[in-house]
């Protein structure tokens, strides 16, 4: 015997409301897990980036250090070469001045330019010419001047002029010693 004309629907625990709630909860859990995954991913990326930056920094530091060493070397090279070039130019002027110093009437046969002195060999018509025209200017330049003469042909005289400068460092040391005693 039939009591109803409709077929009874199956009863389920997942009613429309429950399904709605589960969907909402699933979305919430998904968002939470998604946020957590995002944080984990970002943390990993940050660590990776930091390591990369650190490596790049080391490369830059090393590179900069090498370039600074090169700059220092070039500056040293530049300074030394300028010193040498200046010394060469000064030497040229000194030699030029020395030969300009010798008057026409005196003929040099040999000149020895030393670190702190000058030795000249030559021939002069007489002592007066030598004394006035060469010895006097040499004496004004050098601290110690010695001359010796030997007779040559035709009444001329051969001379050897030895001229020395006092070592400036010795002088400074002497001065300092003197100051200390005072």
């Amino acid at each position, binding site marked *: 015997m039939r009591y109803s004309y409709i077929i009874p629907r199956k009863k389920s625990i997942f009613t429309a409301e429950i399904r709605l*709630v589960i969907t909402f909860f699933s979305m919430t859990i998904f968002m939470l897990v998604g946020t957590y995954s995002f944080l984990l991913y970002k943390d990993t990326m*940050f660590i990776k980036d930091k390591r990369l930056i650190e490596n790049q920094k080391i490369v830059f530091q090393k590179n900069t250090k090498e370039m600074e060493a090169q*700059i220092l070397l070039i500056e040293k090279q530049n300074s030394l070469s300028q010193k040498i070039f200046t010394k*060469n130019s000064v030497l040229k002027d000194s030699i030029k001045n020395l030969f300009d110093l010798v008057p026409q009437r005196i003929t040099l046969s040999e000149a020895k*330019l030393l670190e702190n002195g000058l030795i000249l060999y030559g021939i002069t018509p007489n002592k007066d010419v030598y004394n006035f025209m060469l010895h006097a200017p040499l004496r004004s330049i050098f601290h110690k001047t010695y001359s010796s003469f030997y007779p040559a042909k035709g009444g001329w005289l051969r001379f050897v002029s030895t001229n020395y400068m006092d070592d400036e460092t010795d002088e400074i040391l002497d001065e300092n010693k003197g100051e200390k005693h005072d």
Partner: protein
Amino acid sequence: MTSINRQSIYILILSTFLLIFVLIFSLKFLIPHGKEYREQRSQLSFARADLRRWKNFDDETYATLKTLQSDNRHIIEAFESSFNEQRFIKTYKKLFNTLSLSKTKRLDSQDGFEVYQVTTSSQISSPEVFYNFLDEVNKSDWIIGVNFPINFKRNGEVISSSFSMKVYCNGTVPSNDSNTSKEVKK
């Protein structure tokens, strides 16, 4: 009195579970990792700023180095060149009547540079030649300093001259040098 149906109980239980889950998950994982994320982000931005600073410094140093290198090209190349007696004679023979180098001797290093002493003897027609040589030597392929003692001796129409030179280089040994090793460490 209203009775609570089964469905409402399910929803209540689910909600309670969700609440507990959300609380535990947030306190245990999300909040600590969020803090860490902020710290890492600030550290990274600091590291990036530091890297930028180093990069700028590196760029500035590079620009300075390039300027110095281009301004002092001749000097740098001269210091890098090892002294070659044959090439020296070939270059400067045109100034002198005769030119010979007698010995190359290694001296003590000066300011970190290797120094070699070369004794030179030559014949010149007038002192002007020697002045020209001193001008030319400053433009030579090597860093050369002419040193005392310098001797000039008249031999008829020519002047025999002898002088010593100091050749400076970065650490390479002049060629034709039998007394010293072939390569000197920097």
